């Protein structure tokens, strides 16, 4: 017999492992979902995807092979899923809870519209939201080739 707490730890990890391997969330029929744009740290569009009400940004990213880390798998214990939202969408969301704020303290490149991807759930109002991934490393590659002059 597992105590309820262990059970919830295990369920959470089973559930989230599944999230990493896709299939945790279902994709809406094209044209019917809530639109979400993912951008890289330089503001280039990575992908526009559609998702359902209630899906969180981390699971959506994983469903669509977007490189957003989720080291603690959505347990608000790591801040690796940090995303920067467009200001309008940020204002539409409820204020982050204490535990999310505690982890945001440690996020890299924190901004006024930063949130943890695993804690942001989509609503219809957020249709067209942009989530920008902060730079994952201290230095970024120059896309493609070595620059010719410098």
């Amino acid at each position, binding site marked *: 017999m597992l105590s309820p707490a262990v059970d919830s730890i295990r369920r959470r990890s089973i559930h989230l492992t599944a999230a990493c391997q896709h299939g945790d969330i279902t994709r809406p029929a094209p044209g019917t979902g809530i639109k979400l744009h993912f951008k890289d740290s330089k503001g280039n569009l990575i992908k526009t995807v559609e998702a359902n009400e209630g899906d969180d940004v981390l699971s959506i990213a994983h469903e669509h092979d977007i490189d957003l880390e989720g080291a603690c798998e959505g347990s608000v214990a790591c801040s690796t899923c940090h995303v920067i939202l467009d200001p309008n969408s940020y204002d539409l969301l409820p204020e982050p809870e204490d535990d999310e704020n*505690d982890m945001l303290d440690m996020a890299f490149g924190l901004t006024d519209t930063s949130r943890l991807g695993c804690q942001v759930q989509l609503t219809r109002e957020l249709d067209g939201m942009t989530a920008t991934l902060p730079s994952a490393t201290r230095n970024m590659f120059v896309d493609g*080739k070595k620059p010719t002059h410098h």
Partner: protein
Amino acid sequence: MPPIKLAIIGAGPSSFYVASRLLASLPPSSPHHSALRIHMYDRLWAPHGLVRYGVAPDHPEVKNCTHKFDDAASDLRLQFFGNVNIITTPPIAPVPGSVMLPLKSLISHYTHLLLSSGCTLPTLHPALPPSDDCVSALSLVHWYTQHPSVVHKPPPPLEKYKHVSIIGQGNVSLDVARMLLTPPSTLEKYDVPESVLEVLRRSSIKHVSILGRRGPLQAAFTTKELREMMNLEDSSMVPIDHTHLAIPEGTKLTRQQSRTMQLLQKGSKNKPGLDFQDLVVGLLRSPTGLAPPLSSLASPSLPYTLSLAHNELSPEMRAIPTGETSTLRTSMVVTALGHQAEPTIPWYDPSLRHVRAVGSRVVNETGHTMKNVYASGWAAMGARGVLVSTMIDAYGVADTMLADSFPEQFYKEGDALRSATDGGSLGDLSEVMAKEADLDSVPEEVLDAKATGNVTDYNDWRMIDQEEVRRGEKLGKERERMNWEDAKAFLGRMGGSL
């Protein structure tokens, strides 16, 4: 292009994040896919470094990062060799059961080397030499995680102690305080070994003081850990003296600092009262000595006297003694003053107390960059930061390694070392690594030890991991840990006892 045949010393999170980034950057579609081999060596039989033998048991979510490490290890280009201690000089305290492999034998098989061996030694306090009742936080962490180095050491006699003084105000001191103050009935569902729970159930600890030499704005703990401390079910915090919580005029608080201050001002969920264990956060105090027991006089449960110098903060936020002093009666002192790398690791810098590296690349004592030798994680940065910082650093190291090896594909903008020299070269390089290497060769010493069953691979670890979870399930907990003897017996290897 020559291949990357990389040996990594250490199999902690930094090592796995570097490996994972390298593997993912050279996918099957890349022309360099098959030009990569990674051999990860750890002197412990189990992988994951401080994630297994450091992270507090009541933080199970933090350990979810190992799923990503498992994914990396399922790539055939990565191999793990557990129980292999890479040495430059004979170690002072060898890890029981591990195989010694001289660095020289290792590097002749590899074109690239990554030092990712962490900061495994506790920093001590000059006024508090270790003794039976004055120990480092790391030694307690090793006890409650059953680190292979403590297997035959006696557990701390918690039944003897009433008051514990923890010196240092970082997350590790809060981890230790939480482990000592959380009811064992709460801890028993987590990854806490049965032998540890038994000792915790016998504990007589009623009071814990966490002492720091500076003020609340300089404390290194994070808000999350502080909040947990404030919400402990059977403990309360003695309110902090208001003068210590005053914010000097003109100070602009960071977001984290203002949240820490709010928490400290609000105080603990349980208000101080008779039935609670209590916790004191002592600010602006530096220990100056610990007087040994005065025979069995007065108070046998509080035999020691800890002397404290009182401090104030200089304008540069340094702790300056005011001349005032006080004493504290205590049963046990725990020093939580950070960690440093072992002086025997190659390219160790005594003034930094970790590996000398510039922009991920290892530099020798004459300032020359070592060709194809890199450092990452706590070994390179010193013991600071949580997993997210370790991950970001590791990705940067992997990117540098790729840029150095495959510049036409991975050139990095703003690489200080490269742009400082003409034409993007790194200038004079010292070479120690093999120019070429058989992609799948392994040092003979390792093969020999593997044949005797003393070296673990990642499949061994997966089996043990599953078995630990299975044994835990039977006891209603997250997992029940094995030590190397148990693991050996389970794997059907010689010399086990069960």
